[in-house]
Structures are given as structure tokens and as C-alpha cells.
């Protein structure tokens, strides 16, 4: 009870009155464009004739959905987001679990993991274009060493989407690792000792203790990644894609 009420309530009320106007203004400034976007989306609105007498309801959404190119884009985006986040999660959780059992040099691993995240996405695109060049790239060279036919990583439409998925994973998986690792290191240590004495194998401890305790972190991590991966043009994908391949043009950067 003492912890909850640390400031005298009169003081708190005073502080509240002082900051309320500023906060209200701030929230208005932040929210207005958001609502504006929603508002215009249900009106027949152009900059040339900005009047709202023609409420069109979900008309704009329907016409977009009737457009087959848009549907194709939407499908590709959904597929891309789902695949990228799923693979990143599996790799990320695995690596996070491994790193969590390492006690020494943790800052070094964090540093290495953050490298791709900090890299300029333009450079990421250029570098991977070099690596994946059909005839001159190092990847096809390595494949030829083990006698595998060279792959047209960026030219073929079927392959290109997977190439993009791979590069995106390379670039973003660290984000997942770092978040999950933070969650893992915040788990209490004691239940694991209790489980060991209770007779739990490493797998059972993972299944019955780590997973249930990590649920909140897992869900938040997946949500964040889904939101970011689902924002076309966000983070770095558009330009990275653009630089990766002129074959797969990015609509938002056209």
C-alpha cells in the first residue's frame, strides 16, 4: 500500500492539471492525421475538390479489392509477411535459447547481432546483389564448388520472392533474437533448479516452464514483427528490394 501511494494525492492532482493541456494538445496533434487518413478513406476525396459531401462508405476499399493487381500485391505481401516472420521466429528463438546459456562475452554477441540491423539497407541491397549475381556472385560460385547448377536468384519470379525472404531474414532476424533473448534472460532461474530436482529433462523444462513463461514475450515479439513486416515501404524493404533487383519493382517506390 505504501508503494502504491508515493506522492501526496493533492500534489498529484496539481501536476495533472498542469500537464493535462499539453498532453491533450500532443495527443490531438498525434491523432489528427491518423483519424484524417481513416476519414478520407471513406469519402470521395481529391486535393482538387476537397469537400466531403460525398460519403462513399467502404467504396474505396472495395474498388481497391476489385483491382487484380492490388489483390496480387496483397496476397504477395501477406505471404511474404507470414513466411518471413515464421522463419525468423523459429531461427530467432533457437539462437536466443543458445545464447541464453552463454554467460560470457554476451555484449560481444549482442554487438554482432546488431550489425545487420544497423547497416544501411541500400548497402544491404547492393551487397546481396553482388553475392547473388547469376554468373559473378559468390553464392553461385560456392554452389558450383559442390556441383550445384547456378540459380538465377533475382531474375526468376518464383525464386526472387524467396531470395527477398532470405535477405529480409538475414537483415531482421537479429531483432527477433534480441527481443526473445531479453525475455529469456528475464525469466526466473529458480524454477529451473526446482524442475531439475523434480526430474525434468532439458526438453521438458523448455516445454513446461520456458514456453508458458515466455508466452507474453513471444506474442509481443510476433506482433511487433508482423506490424513492421506488414508495413510496405517501412524499415528498409522497399529500397532494399529496389536495389536488389530491377526485375521485382516495388510499387511504393515507383
Amino acid at each position, binding site marked *: 500500500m505504501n508503494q502504491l501511494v508515493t506522492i501526496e494525492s493533492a500534489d498529484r492532482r496539481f501536476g495533472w492539471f498542469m500537464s493535462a493541456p499539453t498532453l491533450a494538445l500532443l495527443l490531438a496533434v498525434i491523432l489528427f492525421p491518423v483519424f484524417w487518413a481513416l476519414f478520407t478513406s471513406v469519402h470521395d476525396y481529391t486535393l482538387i475538390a476537397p469537400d466531403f459531401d460525398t460519403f462513399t462508405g467502404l467504396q474505396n476499399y472495395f474498388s481497391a479489392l476489385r483491382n487484380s493487381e492490388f489483390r496480387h500485391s496483397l496476397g504477395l505481401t501477406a505471404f511474404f509477411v507470414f513466411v518471413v516472420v515464421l522463419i525468423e521466429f523459429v531461427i530467432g528463438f533457437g539462437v536466443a535459447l543458445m545464447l541464453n546459456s552463454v554467460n560470457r562475452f554476451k555484449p560481444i554477441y549482442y554487438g554482432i547481432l546488431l550489425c545487420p540491423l544497423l547497416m544501411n539497407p541500400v548497402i544491404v541491397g547492393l551487397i546481396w546483389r553482388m553475392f547473388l549475381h547469376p554468373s559473378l556472385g559468390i553464392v553461385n560460385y560456392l554452389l558450383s564448388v559442390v556441383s550445384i547448377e547456378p540459380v538465377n536468384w533475382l531474375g526468376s519470379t518464383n525464386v526472387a520472392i524467396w531470395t527477398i525472404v532470405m535477405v529480409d531474414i538475414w537483415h531482421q532476424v537479429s531483432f527477433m533474437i534480441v527481443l526473445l533473448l531479453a525475455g529469456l534472460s528475464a525469466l*526466473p532461474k*529458480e*524454477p529451473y*533448479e*526446482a*524442475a*531439475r*530436482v*523434480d*526430474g*525434468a529433462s532439458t526438453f*521438458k523444462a523448455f516445454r*513446461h*516452464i520456458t514456453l*508458458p*513463461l515466455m508466452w507474453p514475450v513471444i506474442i509481443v515479439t510476433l506482433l511487433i514483427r508482423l506490424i513492421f513486416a506488414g508495413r510496405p515501404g517501412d524499415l528498409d524493404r522497399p529500397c532494399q528490394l529496389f536495389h536488389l533487383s530491377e526485375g521485382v519493382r516495388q510499387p511504393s517506390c515507383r
Partner: protein
Amino acid sequence: MASITLKNINKTYPNGVSAVHDVSLDIRDGEFMILLGPSGCGKSTTLRMIAGLESITSGDLLIGTNRVNDVDPAQRDIAIVFQNYALYPHMTVLDNLSFGLKLRGVDPTEISRRVQRTAEMLGIHPLFDRKPSQLSGGQRQRVALGRALVREPQAFLLDEPLSNLDATLRAAMRTELIKLHRSLGTTIVHVTHDQVEAMTMGERICIMKDGEIVQVGEPMDVYRNPVNTFVAGFLASPPMNLLAGHLEDAGDGAVKVLSGNIAFTIPSHLAKGFSSHAGKPVTIGLRSEDFYLSNGAAKHTVPVNVEAVTTEVLGSEVILVASTGGNAAAEIQVRMPRDFRASPGEKVALHFDLSQIQVFSTTTTRALPRI
């Protein structure tokens, strides 16, 4: 049920810190053994090595007759109650209790029977559906104990399980654990830093300091015959009064103990062993309860005149803090009957029961042999 034997156990951490040094201890089958010591003395590390949560650097650990140094904790058939209880935070009380049995593939009806019986014994069956975060400290403690009990292991290891409880609950749990031990007869190793727990609960006490065993024995034996000043100072509250002094030969095998204003002549039948130490500096140990106001209260009393510094009136008794005066002015604490009062500076004539005197060598801190 099984005995637990430690033979020259050492624990050295990779960074070179030695936590436990050459510990040998025989814990008998069914015994209630206390590991007592200040924090950092290695008692918890010793317990965790028995549990298998810490590796043993060298030495042998036997449970029953099997060397278990390299046996997985799950296979040692011991249960441990942790200081912070270490309950599974996401499981209900029922799941916490049955998890260990489920892992071992025990039959569900058997699990339910055992959990039910244990929960009733501890009075936690109304809490089955709660999560640990919804329990009070005492309830968590009971669930942690229950989780250990349902396993019906060969031995229980208790790592200061009472230290997070308040005084009333701690006293109640103390009695309950003693009764539990009496009814189950299982070997119990109990780590604590509380001398009251040690004195009342244990069949034997093993006192540790700096990773080594200082003394092992029955509570009253350790209390009456501490091997050194560390044990003497640790085992009571208020602790034994330790005064710097020296011994003089008083002839005929008797010795004279001198410390400030105190001068006791110890007759030869009490002091055979002391006389060989005559002329050397010693530490004199006087327990606070061995002082009396009348000289007939015990045989061999000798007068001690002190000056009251303060009195602590506890209700059931009074602690007199008094100065022995002289050059080596030192304060002693004396237990007095509950109606005793003295104002600061007042002279008080006390009588000490000389048969209870402890004399320690100042150089080695070890007790001088009495005989």
C-alpha cells in the same frame, strides 16, 4: 530413507574462489542435521552439492552407499525446499504439487492420492486453484514443502526455508517441521543462519565458517562446549560474553583468571587443563544466563561486581548491559529475572557460576581443554 556421507568435499569455482574446503560429514539415516553458519560460509553451497545443483570439485558424496558425484539431481531421489520457494509461477498449486510426480510417470490416481494427502497434512488443499502470486508467504512456504513431500524422497534438503517468514509463522513452522520429521523419519538436512532454529530443530548441528566445518555435535553439546570463540559467539542471543584476560598459576593445579576487575580463582578440579596455559593471554567466555543475584543459586559461584550501563526489559526477562570496569573496561550482557531493575551507573553485585566458565586461547581462539 538414506544416509548422506560427505568425504573431503571441495568446491572451487572456475574463478579460483574456494567456497567449500575439505568438508567431511556423516549424516545418519533419518537424522535431522543442521548446517549453521553466517552468510557466505559455504553451507548453501554444500547443500546444493548434495542436491546435485552444483558440481563437486573433489571428494566423494555418498547417498546411502552409492557415490553420486556424477548422478543427475533427478536420479538422486532427494527433494529440496528453496529459500525463495522456487514455485513454478505459471502453474496452480495443484500443478506445482503434482508436476514432479507427472514427470516421473506416476499413475494419475496415485498422484491425486498423494497430493491430496500431503495437501491436507499441510492445510493447503483449499488453495489448489491459486497461482503462487496469489499466495501469502506462509502459504508459498507450505506449497514448496508440499512439493517436496509428495515426492516421498530419500532425503529432504531445506535451504533456509523459514527465513522469509515473520516471527510468529516461523516459530509455528519450526514446530511443524520437527513434528513432520518425527512422523516421517526421513533424513533432513536443514541450512540456516538462525541459532534458535539450529538449537531447537536439529538432532545435530554442523557449524561452518569460511567454507570449513568448525564443529559438529548435538545442540547442547555444542552450546556447552564450543570449540572456539566463533562458535561461542554465534550460538546464543545475547551471545556469550567474551573478555580479554590472562591466566595465572594459583598453585595446587588451580588457576587465576584475570580480566579488568574480574579475578576468579578456578579450583583444580575444574581447571586441570587450564593450568598448562598459565601466564598466557586468554579470552574468557561467560554466558549471559550463568550470572545470579544471590550466591547460593549454584555451586562454585564467585562474585562479580559490575556497573549497570543500561537494562533492556523484555517483559519475561531483563537483559542487563553492564561494564566490568577496570582498565580493560568491557561490556557484558547478563540475563536477569523479569523484575530486576537498575539505573545507569548503579553498582550490581552478581555471582557467576564458575563451573560454566569457558576459557579460550587468544592466539588460536580454540577452547582450552578442561581436563
